[in-house]
């Protein structure tokens, strides 16, 4: 079989990735050769810090930023040699690892086949395709030992099966059979309404979504679409990644056998993904929404709708997210002990927009200050004076490339899955393979520019879920910022628009 023309990763990318990446990593000098931010100790040999008995260890170790560390030589598994396409058009990545006693199989399908998953307020419900696959696989795999997972993320439905190597054949057969034939019972859907997701935090985000009449709303499920109404998938809609203890030739042959005669039918036009909503907030959403909920603490969300990120902005937005997340946590957690975490959540970048928000929780007296300092950090990010420092840039870029990007390409099993999902999502691996270059090309002014474009303080709404009267009355002894003052802050921003 030949490599499909739609898999454009390719020949030009293979060896080039490595060189580009190494050149790029050379610029991540925060660790290698950056000026130490502090040197030396105030303590002498034999001295102990106050309250300590053990003396300080006075050493001559290089400062961590002055360590002479070699370049990172990571090379992702080559997708070009892993590509395969069956006669029927099913695309695959096969990455054998003879040492691996496990085989991981991931089938990925763009969720245009699962339209209800994109509907507002449907995250509490499994898409029909997910239900169908889950039930079908459970029956087909029977007593085969292994692990099965079906889910949807970033516009792709994925089926993941891991089995001992000796079961690879039945596992692939079961996955493909489940994709070919939707499970008949999956049309029925659940008999009980799903539990609201996420407790107090989930409720805060749901209320934020409701306020802006857009985005996700975990506790307002809509009815599921029947799996059979979707028609059968075509093999060309499926990308499969197989990594681990398999022989490539055996897998190729099995894929041909198991897809023989599989035609399917293309999705009806009505099943295609809905286009992203137009500029979508209500004319004047509330500034502050307060929701009564018993407990020892309160949950809060501060956010606004966010339009889809333009492909050209993706890397800069990712760097902004990294920098802002650290700043938010330093401001609310580390410096002031207001909360255990303040998390910036951006809409799924493949999902057509949604809610940008900070979510957090805290004791009653912490709610006002958390909102205030979060607001300040969101606002500061847009200003030139708030542009990321060289250190912040280097740390964010290192995190995105050496940690996250490497993490999803970490060996044959992970890489096969990542390649399959990426191809199902974008019909190309170009974006994935160019990600390190794109991230390393971002500079502080790019980050400020995307912050100005996507962060909109004048549209922010704050939602607080908790015992509202107690939250209203509580004042933090060091940072006594009240809910009313939060409302004034938000109102001021809106008035300045």
């Amino acid at each position, binding site marked *: 079989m030949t490599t499909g023309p739609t898999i454009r990763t390719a020949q030009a990318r293979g060896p080039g990735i490595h060189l580009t990446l190494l050149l790029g990593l050379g610029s991540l000098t925060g660790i290698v050769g950056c000026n130490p931010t502090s040197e030396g100790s105030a303590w002498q040999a034999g001295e102990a810090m106050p309250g*300590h008995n053990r003396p300080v260890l006075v050493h001559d170790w290089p400062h961590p930023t002055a360590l002479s560390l070699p370049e990172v030589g*990571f090379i992702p598994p080559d997708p070009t040699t892993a590509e395969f396409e069956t006669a029927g058009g099913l695309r695959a990545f096969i990455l054998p690892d003879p040492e691996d006693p496990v085989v991981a199989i991931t089938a990925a399908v763009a969720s245009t086949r699962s339209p209800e998953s994109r509907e507002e307020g449907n995250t509490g419900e499994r898409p029909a395709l997910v239900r169908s696959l889950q039930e079908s696989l459970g029956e087909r795999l029977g007593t085969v030992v292994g*692990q099965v997972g079906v889910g949807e993320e970033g516009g792709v439905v994925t089926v993941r099966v891991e089995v001992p190597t000796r079961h690879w054949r039945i596992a692939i057969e079961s996955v493909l059979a489940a994709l070919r034939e939707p499970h008949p019972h999956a049309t029925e859907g659940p008999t009980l309404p799903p539990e609201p997701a996420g407790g107090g935090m989930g409720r805060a985000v749901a209320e934020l979504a409701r306020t802006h009449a857009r985005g996700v709303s975990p506790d307002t499920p809509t009815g599921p679409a029947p799996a059979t109404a979707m028609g059968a998938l075509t093999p060309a809609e499926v990308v499969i990644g197989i990594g681990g203890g398999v022989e490539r030739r055996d897998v190729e042959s099995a894929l041909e056998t198991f897809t023989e005669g599989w035609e399917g039918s293309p999705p009806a036009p009505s099943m295609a993904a809905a286009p992203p909503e137009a500029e979508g907030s209500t004319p004047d959403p509330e500034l502050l929404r307060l929701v009564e909920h018993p407990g*020892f603490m309160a949950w809060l969300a501060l956010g606004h709708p966010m339009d889809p990120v333009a492909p050209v902005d993706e890397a800069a937005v990712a760097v902004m997210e990294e920098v802002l997340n650290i700043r938010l946590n330093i401001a609310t957690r*580390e410096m002031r002990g207001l909360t255990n975490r303040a998390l910036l959540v951006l809409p799924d970048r493949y999902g057509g927009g949604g809610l940008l928000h900070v979510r957090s*929780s805290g*004791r009653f007296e912490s709610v006002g200050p958390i909102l205030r300092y979060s607001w300040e950090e969101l606002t500061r990010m847009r200003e030139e004076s708030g542009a990321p420092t060289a250190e912040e840039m280097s*740390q964010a870029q*290192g995190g995105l490339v050496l940690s996250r990007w490497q993490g999803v390409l970490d060996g044959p099993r992970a890489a096969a899955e990542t390649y399959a999902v990426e191809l199902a999502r974008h019909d190309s691996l170009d974006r994935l393979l160019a990600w390190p270059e794109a991230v390393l090309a971002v500079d502080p002014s790019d980050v400020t520019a995307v912050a100005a474009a996507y962060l909109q303080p004048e549209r922010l709404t704050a939602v607080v879920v908790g015992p509202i009267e107690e939250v209203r009355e509580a004042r933090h002894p060091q940072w006594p910022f009240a809910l009313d003052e939060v409302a004034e802050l938000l109102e001021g921003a809106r008035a300045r628009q």
Partner: protein
Amino acid sequence: MRPFRDSSALIPLLASLLLGAAVVGFRETPPPGAVNSQDGRSAGMSPVTEEWEALGITLDELVLDNGFRIVIVEDHRVPRVAASLWYRVGALQEGPGEHGATHFLEHVIHQGTTTIGVRDPELDRRLLEEIHELEAEFLAERNIARNQVRERRIFFDEEAWPTTPRMDSLQARILELEERQSENRHFWQEYNWYREAGGIMRHTDPVPANTGNELMRIEVDLPRERLELLFRMEADRMVNAVLRGFEAQRTIVLEQFLNINRSETGRFSEALNGASGIVHPIYLHPGGHMRDHAFWNRPSVIRMYEEYMVPNNAILALVGAVTAEEILPLAQEYFGRIPAAPEPSPGMDWEAEPPPGGAIRLDWHEPLSPSLTVRYRTPGVGHPDRPAFDLVARLLGGSDGMLAAAARDLGIPSPGWSAGVSRNGSPTRLSIQARPPSDAGLPALERVVEAAVERLRRGEVDEDALTRIHEELRFQWDRLRTHRGELASDLGYFHVMDEWRTMRTFLEAREATTVEEIQRVAARYLVPWNRIVGTTRSAPEPAAEKHLTGGPLQAGPAAPEASR
């Protein structure tokens, strides 16, 4: 291997004591080739290699002169290394009034060192000294106040932290100094350097660590080229951590506690744990309790830091593209420079749990979804009876397990059943859970548990089911041994529970477990006097007022004066 407390297993006990002596001897004796050098570094050391053929892994062990231990499993498929640094310290080492302090210690040792995380070290030193002096005054004042009172109410308000005006003013001054210290700090520096270097960490916060009843672990997965960073920073943290931001961390840890332990089901779970034992600290919550948060103080936290965060109480497990020969110079340069400390006090075994005189029952009186929990105490990892419990739990749980079968046979509608066994070095528990659709279903579910357990005691186990479970467990091991981070973590875990080599004996014993062995442990442990039952109901009778604090008996102010 530490001795276990089991009077009816004398031969294994003696055997384990002998083995324990051998292990202790090994720890204290420098490995072959080790040489003491003048600066405390080891030199010329050779790794000890073990091949676990049946389990498919080969391990190298290095033990420095100061007792610091490194276990290495080479896996060159990806050029990264998972590092898992474990300390044998946890809630079991804490004293009364300072429960949760180890978890707190985990937070405050991630705030930099004498040379990291600070802009002006001299200013930092002056502030630190002033803060300590003020805290000494604060603690003296609090001791005076506390010695004058005794809490006489049954339920007091755990949210009200006793104070006096002088304590308040001292505390305000400490907070002010910490704020000044904050201005002189670089926050999140170590975490950000790891991140920049490509570190993959469990948490997305500056504390890539966990604490439990008998463990504290710090875990980072790095590109192999950046591994020195870990040695540099973790050795520094082991000996030179500066406990900055103490008060901010106190409230951060409190937030974690509130999130997890003060949910309604969290309180039930905590109460069921508390009802499970009389004296053994394993039954205390590792997060401590609400008022403990107020009492954590620098002297007690520093005591734990200096006693337990020492090279001879730690193990570093490394799995990935690295060799023992490459690690040795790093180990000597960094951890090898830290002096050995006196052997830490164990804490783990101080209290022997006396045999209970009967089943324990907790029928929760706050409204919750109906649920049944049945627990049986089980021996800790390192005890020869423990491996069989992994199979017992799997035989019982799931839609095709013995609990579901017993329900079918009794004609009782079966909800989902779950059964699991905790892993600890100390005694722990097998836990069975089910959630009926209504309160009325609870008594029938208890009968189902009794019937299924009785079948186990009689050895009525389906051989095919056991074979399948063995296959599942082998598959799980194969997944684990090919996952750098999981393998490194498990090696460390076995070491704090018992000794890292116990992983092998545990897994081999589990693999060899037969129906007869299952029947033997079931007959011995799954007995009424070893049982703890907990129920929750949506409409309990008599219903308690739904509350989140001290309950309907709560009354009166909580200040110390109130109970003088």
